[in-house]
């Protein structure tokens, strides 16, 4: 399960994705407040107009047959919707499911090389809604290719994104099924008995500079779902930079890190300032599952519940 050699890097990449998201935080917050609106997918029909997170309009016509996805979250979603066979391009980071690996790699997904994307002759391109993608979106549209741009930064975002993409692909009913099952799997973890005091976790994203997750991030939300708390939850940025000394002071019960980073933390003497490291409480995570607010986030929440709350709890 934890064999991906560069999953720590991909985890960081997700943090970068998350970093672009100040506006999305507001969108997600509004969504969270109106659970009903998010829980029930809007119904879309052929001829309807779909508006994406950049305010661009896509008029649903014939379902696209050649899709390029420049966001790991939408790549996984495409396969979950049963439309994986329409995928003709993905980013270097999209390695799940297995079938996605066979699809052409068109680059790292942020500020993409438009010519390479067009070379795949797509009729729809899915992108992450970051400023670095704006120029590419204009160029793709000018070339007559439809685009859908979404911020996928928070748990609630997926409930907003799934119906739009499912509608664009002409698989609305499957979309509702997928959205419901993702929602249900996350809520099933949230519904488990809560510990009286949540385990306090430090989530390691990057070594130099040391970066963690702040309160405004999907991973922080996921910790709450699992019944744990983020020791840096009071910081507003999605991926703030912190000092080792400050981590030691906040004294988390457990550290979460990708396999390579966990090894570095164990080896580096300075990290012994953190009690959880001295006492060996490091949980190695597969950042390709736990790091992405995608269709597998129920699985991610269950993993955290099992490895933080059920096995470590609150050892004080």
């Amino acid at each position: 399960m934890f064999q991906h050699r560069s999953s720590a890097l991909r985890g960081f990449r997700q943090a970068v994705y998350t970093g672009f998201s100040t506006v999305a935080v507001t969108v997600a917050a509004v969504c969270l407040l109106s659970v009903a609106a998010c829980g029930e997918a809007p119904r879309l029909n052929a001829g309807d107009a779909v508006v994406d997170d950049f305010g661009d309009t896509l008029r649903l016509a014939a379902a696209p047959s050649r899709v390029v996805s420049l966001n790991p979250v939408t790549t996984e979603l495409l396969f979950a919707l049963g439309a994986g066979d329409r995928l003709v391009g993905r980013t270097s980071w999209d390695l799940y499911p297995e079938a996605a690996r066979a699809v052409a790699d068109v680059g790292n997904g942020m500020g993409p090389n438009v010519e390479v994307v067009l070379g795949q002759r797509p009729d729809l391109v899915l992108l992450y809604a970051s400023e670095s993608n704006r120029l590419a979106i204009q160029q793709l549209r000018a070339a007559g290719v439809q685009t859908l741009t979404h911020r996928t930064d928070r748990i609630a975002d997926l409930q907003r994104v799934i119906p739009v993409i499912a509608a664009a692909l002409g698989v609305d009913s499957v979309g509702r099924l997928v959205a419901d099952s993702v929602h249900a799997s996350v809520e099933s973890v949230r519904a488990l008995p809560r510990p009286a005091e949540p385990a306090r976790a430090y989530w390691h994203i990057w070594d130099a500079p040391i970066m963690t997750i702040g309160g405004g991030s999907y991973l922080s939300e996921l910790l709450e779902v699992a019944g744990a708390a983020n020791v840096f939850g009071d910081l507003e940025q999605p991926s703030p930079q912190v000092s080792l000394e400050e981590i030691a002071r906040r004294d988390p019960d457990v550290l979460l890190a990708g396999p390579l980073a966990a090894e570095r933390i164990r080896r580096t003497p300075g990290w012994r300032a953190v009690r959880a490291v001295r006492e060996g409480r490091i949980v190695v995570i597969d950042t390709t599952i736990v790091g992405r607010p995608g269709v597998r986030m129920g699985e991610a929440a269950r993993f955290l519940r099992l490895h933080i709350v059920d096995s470590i709890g609150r050892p004080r």
Partner: protein
Amino acid sequence: MKLHVWLALVLLLLVAVVLGVLGGPVPLAATEVWSALRGVGDATQLAIVQNLRLPRVALGVAVGAGLAASGTALQATLRNPLAEPYLLGVSGGAAAGAVAAVTLGLSSALLLPLFAFAGAVVAVVIVLLVARAVSGHADPRVLLMAGVVVGAFCTAVIMVALATAPENTVRGALWWMMGSLGDAQWRSLRWVALYVAIGIALLVWWSRDVDVLALGEDAAASLGLPVERVTRRIYLTASLLAAATVAGAGLIGFVGLIVPAIARALGARNTRQAVVAAALAGAALVVLADLAARTLLRPAELPLGAVTAIIGVPFFLWRLRSAR
């Protein structure tokens, strides 16, 4: 230099070291720090003082002393007050080496400094070869020009590497290039300290030759000094000294530029005094700048290279104005 100036420099360094160990993002009382130094206290406090702050301050002393001494020797030998490792391609070579390590996926704490050092050595050797090919001997002006050009080439190599690398890699490399003492560990510190000690000792040992060089090449040659060999020897030693500090802590600019100016302003009468005075002042400056870097924006850390530049540039401009 007068005795009280020396005492003041030593005292300044001591104060900087004490402040560096006392201060940090986590407030610890002086008594707690003192107990931790003697091995008494809870494990977290012990680790913060012994594994985080002490190696950081020690690395700051080594890096600051090394950069300042190197800058002083380079300025004296090349007879140009602007000469410093940054300008001469040494830092550029080290940065290119480090970026190469990162893009090859070899960015471990052990390999990154080795690649940086190798990059710096390659850059210095190329500068020396170019200088020899152009002028037939180690002409200071040609050395400077070759250094600038090789530095520019290294920047281009870095840009190519970063343009084709994924942004996570870029971030790690950029952070490293901004300079930081955050990776200080006793194990890696040992060889940086050894290198700096040997480098400064050699520069002090040869400083008499530099003083003779300062009389002008012809005068020095007529006094029996092998001008070319001396220039090359000191250039190489000072560059390798700077390369070791860059390998230990990334790129920390302006220390090698402004501290030698301070040493001269304090009244250093010859190269030997200037090198030693600059080493003391440079060590104090880097330790204090690092203290600022890790406390000003708590819980985040500022890049040390940015702090030294923010202190260094206005100071340098002010010096330029008063020198007019």
